[in-house]
């Protein structure tokens, strides 16, 4: 019986995902990042470890920001956050880990090697490799991402790769405009769509 349920769940998951096919490959993952952008509307708590003052700035060890709003919640942490002495609006972050619950059955995790939050320009630049993954198996990998926290826009001029059980999409550049809900991949895209029944053979 369990395998039938699993198959049924897989089928219904696949049907749901099939509907999201191309938009899903792009949109769903970006939802995660947008989830992070909508941080301020949550009840949030900020905690961090010892603070030290070093040559390059005020260093916070293991800063962690978390919050929840109904069944939506997020937790964002980093190994270190360094507020620059030269420009206190700039906070450099090392090894960012973000886990977001967007709804009861939709969780997304984001890992970035490095980031810089510019409170003046309200931007968050993630760099040196970003991995995003959802609990339903979609994955995305970016070289870098610029998140405009005020408008929710996300840009990258580095390669973006999306994979899911349905296939994969590779693009040289990406723009996501949250207001219009438009996701644009440009400078060359390549997409492979794996038909559903082949997927279950794997």
């Amino acid at each position, binding site marked *: 019986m369990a395998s039938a349920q699993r198959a049924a769940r897989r089928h219904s998951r696949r049907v749901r995902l*099939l509907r999201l096919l191309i938009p899903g490959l792009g949109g769903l993952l970006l939802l995660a990042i947008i989830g992070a952008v909508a941080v301020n509307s949550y009840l949030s708590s900020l905690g961090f470890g010892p603070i030290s003052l070093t040559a390059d700035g005020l260093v916070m060890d293991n800063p962690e920001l978390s919050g929840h709003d109904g069944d939506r919640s997020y937790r964002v942490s980093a190994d270190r956050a360094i507020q620059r002495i030269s420009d206190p609006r700039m906070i450099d972050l090392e090894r960012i880990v973000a886990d977001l619950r967007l709804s009861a059955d939709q969780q997304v995790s984001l890992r970035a090697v490095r980031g810089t939050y510019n409170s003046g320009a309200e931007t968050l630049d993630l760099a040196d490799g970003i991995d995003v993954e959802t609990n339903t198996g979609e994955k995305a990998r970016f070289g870098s991402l610029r998140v405009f926290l005020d408008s929710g826009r996300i840009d990258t001029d580095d390669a973006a790769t999306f994979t899911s059980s349905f296939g994969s999409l590779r693009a040289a550049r990406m723009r996501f405009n949250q207001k219009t*809900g438009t996701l644009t*991949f440009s400078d060359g*895209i*390549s*997409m492979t769509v794996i038909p559903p029944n082949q997927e279950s053979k794997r």
Partner: protein
Amino acid sequence: QTFSDAFAGFGSNDREPIQIEAKELKVQDKSQSAVFSGDVVVTQGEATLKTQRLIVHYDGSAAGGVNQRISRLEASGRVYIASKDQTATGENATFDMNRQLMVMTGKEVVLSQGPNVVVGNRLTVNLKTGQADLEAPKSGRVKVLIQPKSLNEGAPRN
């Protein structure tokens, strides 16, 4: 003279992966559509579609019918379709996945198989049976109707 059912299954064959290359892809969640543009090449098995612009429409009913999937494809701009030994070129082509129909239009829709070339202005292909109907403008030019199942020189049945 017959055209094999080369076009049968184009777009509705869901066994082989589909490969899509293009310069740009714009996904609009609200309108449930994805627009590929710039030297778009779609390949699946032996079938190839080339066009300048391809709009993919989704069944959008939020009620979530069972077979939620691509409902329509609209290709425009130097549309070239090739499948097995048959090619068709025109200005626009639409694939209605629900009715399994492809309609290609243009001033000159050229359907060819090997040496045989027929020109009309509207080609309708039943994607399930592969039956292709090529219509010519009313200017009295001969209308060519191609029967897939008529006798042909022992072409292998596939």
